């Protein structure tokens, strides 16, 4: 196979490499070897995603025809500014989480299950990448279920340390399956009136359809299904338990990439597939997405303030952050959608980093990390805590961190659309998020009253190096945000401005 043919097949490789390596990982009984396969899988996907991003950095786009069947009959993978950026963010975070998993997974999972765990890990990575790449509405459902089922397996593996992980996995399975089925019902309605499944083809055909009601119903079912997967309030209920009881490395992986893929799909449905019926989508954005996003921001933040278990606290905070992304997409202007993509990237490095740090605490304490258990850890685990703190400050949106750039572009997009009340709400909720972060920071440097719990092994480089990669990414994206902002602008131009 020549170099040229590899490059021509890059869009498929980013999905196929993890998927093909998954069964190999399942057969390997040795923890280290299985990890190596996972690193090759996620690393291969990262390299492919990086090359793809380079190929579309001039604003061009191209499509890959699976099995050489031309669209709209065959399934196509679409590589454009938006999908390449999202897949690159996800592949990078998946790779860092895989590095962390080498020491973290064996501590929480039975030795003989490790190979199978990495198999599910790779399936989740491949499925989520496919979700972003595909240009076919039904193929999207298949990737949705591949990623959902493997995520359920990964979450349930947390049962090694806490049996509640099983219930969290079961609930995600049921709620996720209902959501995915809603999406399929929607696709069925749209297919019935258009006779096509290709997204670009659908976008061209939908405006000509006379049966507005069917389009409305199909659109409603599809969006409702994806809202469940993206964990947007009030259908976020599966998320806190799933993130809280999953193994540490899995929490970091899912928090960084799982909901991001669904949010991207939401943008695709709103701005590509149904671009031809702006009155329908505007209705959904104005009366459904924006109110739900704001409700989610406040619910997540307030629940996080009163939460005592640190992983659950971060999960509630994720609900709020997903709300910011959904709100940015809800604005629907080019600046708003760009702000959404910027925050997809920034929130991935922020929350991924924080979950990695909590994983480090967990492995040192060997028990669930509650706020009281963290007392004084700042002095005893300074390297991990400093990394945690950088990500935390970025979460609040302090200048010179990635989170500040997100908030800046979101607020600017809101002002440009004269949505002053919404902008005030965003600022108020940012101030509220200081409350729960300060609660953690205070306790980290507090002197414990009684005996200090013994630490197991202290701080291992294998655990804090991935964390610091993300912490430095937070600072770098805060100081030099131009590459991400430019890519996000191109993505938004392509999705909103291009049609």
């Amino acid at each position: 196979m020549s170099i040229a043919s590899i490059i021509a097949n890059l869009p498929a490789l980013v999905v196929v490499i993890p998927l093909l390596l998954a069964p190999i990982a399942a057969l390997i009984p040795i923890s280290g070897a299985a990890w190596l396969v996972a690193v090759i899988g996620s690393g291969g996907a990262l390299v492919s995603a990086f090359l793809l991003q380079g190929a579309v950095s001039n604003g061009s786009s191209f499509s890959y025809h699976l099995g050489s069947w031309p669209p709209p009959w065959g399934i196509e993978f679409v590589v454009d500014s938006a999908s390449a950026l999202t897949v690159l963010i996800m592949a990078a975070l998946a790779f860092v989480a895989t590095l962390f998993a080498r020491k973290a997974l064996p501590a929480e999972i039975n030795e003989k299950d490790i190979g199978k765990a990495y198999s599910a890990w790779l399936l989740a990575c491949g499925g989520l990448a496919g979700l972003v790449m595909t240009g076919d509405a039904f193929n999207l459902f298949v990737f949705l279920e591949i990623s959902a089922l493997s995520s359920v397996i990964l979450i349930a593996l947390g049962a090694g340390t806490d049996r509640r992980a099983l219930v969290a996995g079961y609930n995600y399975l049921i709620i996720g399956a209902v959501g995915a089925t809603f999406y399929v019902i929607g696709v069925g309605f749209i297919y019935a009136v258009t006779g096509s499944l290709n997204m670009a083809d659908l976008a061209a055909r939908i405006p000509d359809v006379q049966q507005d009601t069917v389009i409305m119903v199909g659109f409603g079912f599809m969006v409702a299904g994806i809202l469940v997967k993206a964990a947007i309030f009030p259908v976020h209920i599966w998320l806190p338990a799933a993130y809280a009881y999953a193994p540490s490395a899995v929490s970091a992986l899912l928090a960084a990439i799982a909901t991001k893929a669904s949010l991207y799909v939401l943008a695709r449905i709103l701005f590509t597939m149904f671009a031809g019926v702006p009155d329908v989508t505007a209705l959904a954005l104005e009366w459904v997405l924006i109110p739900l996003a704001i409700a989610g921001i406040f619910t997540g933040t307030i629940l996080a303030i009163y939460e005592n278990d640190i992983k659950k606290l971060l999960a509630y905070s994720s609900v709020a952050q997903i709300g910011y992304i959904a709100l940015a997409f809800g604005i629907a202007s080019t600046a708003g959608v760009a702000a959404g993509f910027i925050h997809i990237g920034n929130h991935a490095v922020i929350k991924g980093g924080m979950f990695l740090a909590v994983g480090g605490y967990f492995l040192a304490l060997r028990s669930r990390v509650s706020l009281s258990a963290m007392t004084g850890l700042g002095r005893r685990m300074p390297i991990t805590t400093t990394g945690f703190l950088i990500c935390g400050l970025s979460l609040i949106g302090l200048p010179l961190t990635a989170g500040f750039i997100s908030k800046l572009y979101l607020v600017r997009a809101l002002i440009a659309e004269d949505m002053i009340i919404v902008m005030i709400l965003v600022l108020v909720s940012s101030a509220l998020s200081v409350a729960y972060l300060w609660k953690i920071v205070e306790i980290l440097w507090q002197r414990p009253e009684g005996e200090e719990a013994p630490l197991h092994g202290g701080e291992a480089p294998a655990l804090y190096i991935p964390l610091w990669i993300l912490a430095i990414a937070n600072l770098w994206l805060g100081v030099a945000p131009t590459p991400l902002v430019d890519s996000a602008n191109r993505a938004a131009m392509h999705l909103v401005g291009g049609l």
Partner: protein
Amino acid sequence: MDLVATITANWNYLIVILLMMGGLFIVISQNNMVKKLVGLAIFQTSVFLFYITVGKVAGGTAPILMSYGKAAYSNPLPHVLILTAIVVGVATTALGLALVLRIHAAFGSIEDDEVLAMKADAGMPRSKRSRSSDPDGSDPDGGDPA
């Protein structure tokens, strides 16, 4: 009668709606985890039926090339899509049942409310046993209703 005509002309759609709402209702209302999965399967089956109904052409045959003239044939694509969806549905049910087995082993119950009540207990500080040799999360105390 107008109503009767509407019903007889669209009876398969009515069955789809009936199954869909029934399945979803079971998922939401039932407390038993196996019954929830049954409801989910019914819900998904209604969608299969919906696709097949959409693809069927009245009086159409199977889409096989004939040597003589053109015959009306049913749309094969929805059938193929549903084959995929059936596979996904089977995988979902299988994984769900496997999880229910593990939940039964760990909690001694598959009733949603009983398991939820027990979760609070498991949240208490626990001894090291849960970490050392407990791959499937089975808990010696799991059998006791809280």
